[in-house]
């Protein structure tokens, strides 16, 4: 009897149960509404626009089915922009990750007197991308920019230094500006993880003779791997969005050398008034971003779970 009494769930009055249920619904309503407004509405809008003839002034004029999507996927320039965007995003994200770790380790070493250094290092992240684009455009300016001046100082041909006019170098040049701008974010995340490390383990490893790279590789890296993966994921998403730098530095040129998918979307909407085409590119890009980021997200979760 005593066991049976233990398994019996205490009954609550029916009215109280209903009130609690409604209270729960009330509390989750803002979240649900936010999700619907921020996620579902744009998704439905984009799908509808991609499947219809839609201009800036008159969306949803007529149903065109998958015609626009087919046209987008059949356009060599647009497909090239998708590939360019993926390669760019992966490249700058990896570069930011490596540099971010290096900077974070340096910051950790300078933790005692380094508040000013930390602030300075983080400064690029706080700058508006438009300013970053302008700044780096000036750096690359062949008519007296920093790069040309340095090359000239060492006896090189200043006028030959024009990376933004080169189909080979324009994208890396934008990537360098991007890495400069967002590496501090990675450094900040990694630095936080380093500070939160269990110092007893590190000390124990040191006592066992681990130092330098060996200590980092065998002890530090495994303990911050989850954060690294998360930082890479965030950086990857930021890199896929790149628009401002392209807009400010090259307008997608020379030729199509720096035309990313985000820039193509902007061009379709605001310069061609073609919302349908922009929506179709957006849908395809969303699929690509999802395909690329899901493995990263899963790795992040696994690493974080392992660490826990």
């Amino acid at each position, binding site marked *: 009897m005593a066991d049976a009494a233990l398994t019996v769930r205490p009954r609550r009055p029916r009215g109280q149960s209903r009130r609690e249920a409604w209270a729960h619904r009330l509390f989750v309503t803002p979240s649900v509404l936010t999700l619907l407004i921020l996620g579902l509405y744009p998704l439905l809008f984009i799908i509808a626009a991609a499947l219809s003839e839609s201009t800036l002034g008159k969306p949803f004029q007529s149903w065109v089915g998958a015609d626009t999507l087919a046209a987008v996927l059949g356009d060599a320039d647009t497909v090239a922009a998708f590939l360019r965007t993926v390669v760019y995003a992966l490249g700058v994200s990896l570069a930011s990750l490596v540099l971010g770790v290096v900077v974070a380790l340096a910051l950790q070493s300078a933790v005692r007197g380094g508040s000013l250094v930390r602030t300075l290092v983080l400064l690029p992240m706080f700058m508006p991308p438009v300013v970053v684009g302008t700044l780096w455009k000036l750096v690359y300016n062949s008519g007296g920019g920093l790069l040309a001046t340095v090359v000239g100082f060492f006896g090189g041909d200043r006028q030959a230094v024009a990376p933004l006019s080169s189909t080979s170098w324009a994208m890396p040049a934008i990537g360098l500006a991007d890495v400069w701008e967002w590496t501090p974010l990675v450094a900040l995340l990694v630095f936080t993880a380093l500070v939160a490390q269990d110092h007893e383990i590190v000390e124990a490893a040191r006592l066992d003779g681990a130092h330098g790279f060996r200590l980092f590789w065998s002890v530090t890296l495994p303990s911050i791997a989850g954060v690294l993966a998360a930082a890479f994921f965030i950086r990857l998403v930021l890199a*896929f969005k790149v628009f401002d730098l392209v807009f400010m530095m090259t307008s997608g040129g020379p030729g199509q050398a720096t035309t990313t998918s985000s*820039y193509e979307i*902007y061009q379709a909407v605001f*310069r061609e*008034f073609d919302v349908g085409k922009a929506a179709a590119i957006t849908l395809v890009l969303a699929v690509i*971003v999802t395909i690329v980021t*899901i493995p990263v997200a899963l790795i992040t979760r696994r690493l974080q779970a392992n660490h826990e």
Partner: protein
Amino acid sequence: MSASHPRSRRSRLRLTVPAAAVAALALTLAACSSGAPSAAGTGSAGGADSLNVLMISSHQGAADYLAKRYKEETGITINPTIVPYDQIGNTLDLDQQSGANQYDAAAVWYVSIGDLAADGSIQDLTDWIDSTPAIEKDDFIQSIYDPYSLVDGKRYGLPFDGDSHVLFYNKTILERNGITSPPKTWDEYVQDSKIVTQNEGANGVYGNVIFGQKSPLILGASFANRLAGFGGTFVDAQGKPTINSPQAVQAAQSLVDALGSAYPTPAETDFGAGNTAWYAGKAAFIENWTDLGVGSQINPASTVKDQWGVVPLPVGGSNTTPRASLVAGFTWVVSANTKKTQEAKDFIQWATSSKINEELLTADPQTGIDPNRSSTLNSTSYAQKYPELAEVNHTSLNGTLPWPTGKNATKAAEVLTDELANLIAGQENAQQALDKVQAQWEQLLG
């Protein structure tokens, strides 16, 4: 606890996939929306004694002048909102489509009026123009009146900034290099440019400025100038694309031939960079609007005062008659949803009048406005103050090369610009680039 892990991972995966998809979409949307430069000013519906107008940054001087003068004459306040030249069409379109309806009138790129009309963002002004003799429509320069206002038999605007590119040359640089007269053909232009760059390139002085930044109003203009010179057209009399004609291919090749002697670097050169080089005396030739001559005389940055000359754009191939290419003309339109239609019409009638156009042409500081009327082109004040500009305008505005202006014209301009960008980047040759444009234009323009 361990048994619950696999289920947890599956559920995480189920959550991760849609969450990542939604996140990606939201981020893409954010990227799309955040890129649009916002208007420099803020409009407001205002009272009956004010009007909100949309203008481009190159017309800042004109905006200030018009606001001041209209206030003096009528007591009505003009609130100009200034946007970049390639943003005015979409800003007006979005304003009307969103229901914000901030703008009563706008001075838009004439190529966009077909799309704005198709989107229902601007008003059909045909009846008003026909029934208002005071507009003096016959006084508009006839070679620009139709392209700047007419779409499918209806008139949507009044010409404001009569656009015509001409060729400016630096007399001092030509003299230094033994060039005795400005070029009459594009081949001569290329040859003269090479001479200057070879002789003085090391000193930072170049034969020409090529506006090559990837924008219809910039790179598109550089090509259109040559297309006009070689006697080509964008479309034929029936509106069918002719953009890969032999003349067009010659024009594109001539553009490529000029790149080697251009002020560095052509692919990055926009109006700001190019005009700065000209004012600094760093280029022998520059294709530009006639108001560059005004700037050369009165702009504080100019070092070329009284050192420049101007001629009509060169010719090429079998064509021997200079023509102006209507590259970046602007026309006043009345927004579709304004509650001040009559006030807006009154304003654009005044702003495009002979009297105001003449004032804008000779104003100091410069306003960036070219002649829109025959009477102002022939006016004494313009001829006295800028005789060379008046003469060259006379010569080149007799026959003009307009861009297509109907529905999809803005998209067609972008298509052309993209391929021209590939051309000057060396990724395609002239024939390949224009064949691709022709194929796309046949779908867009019919």
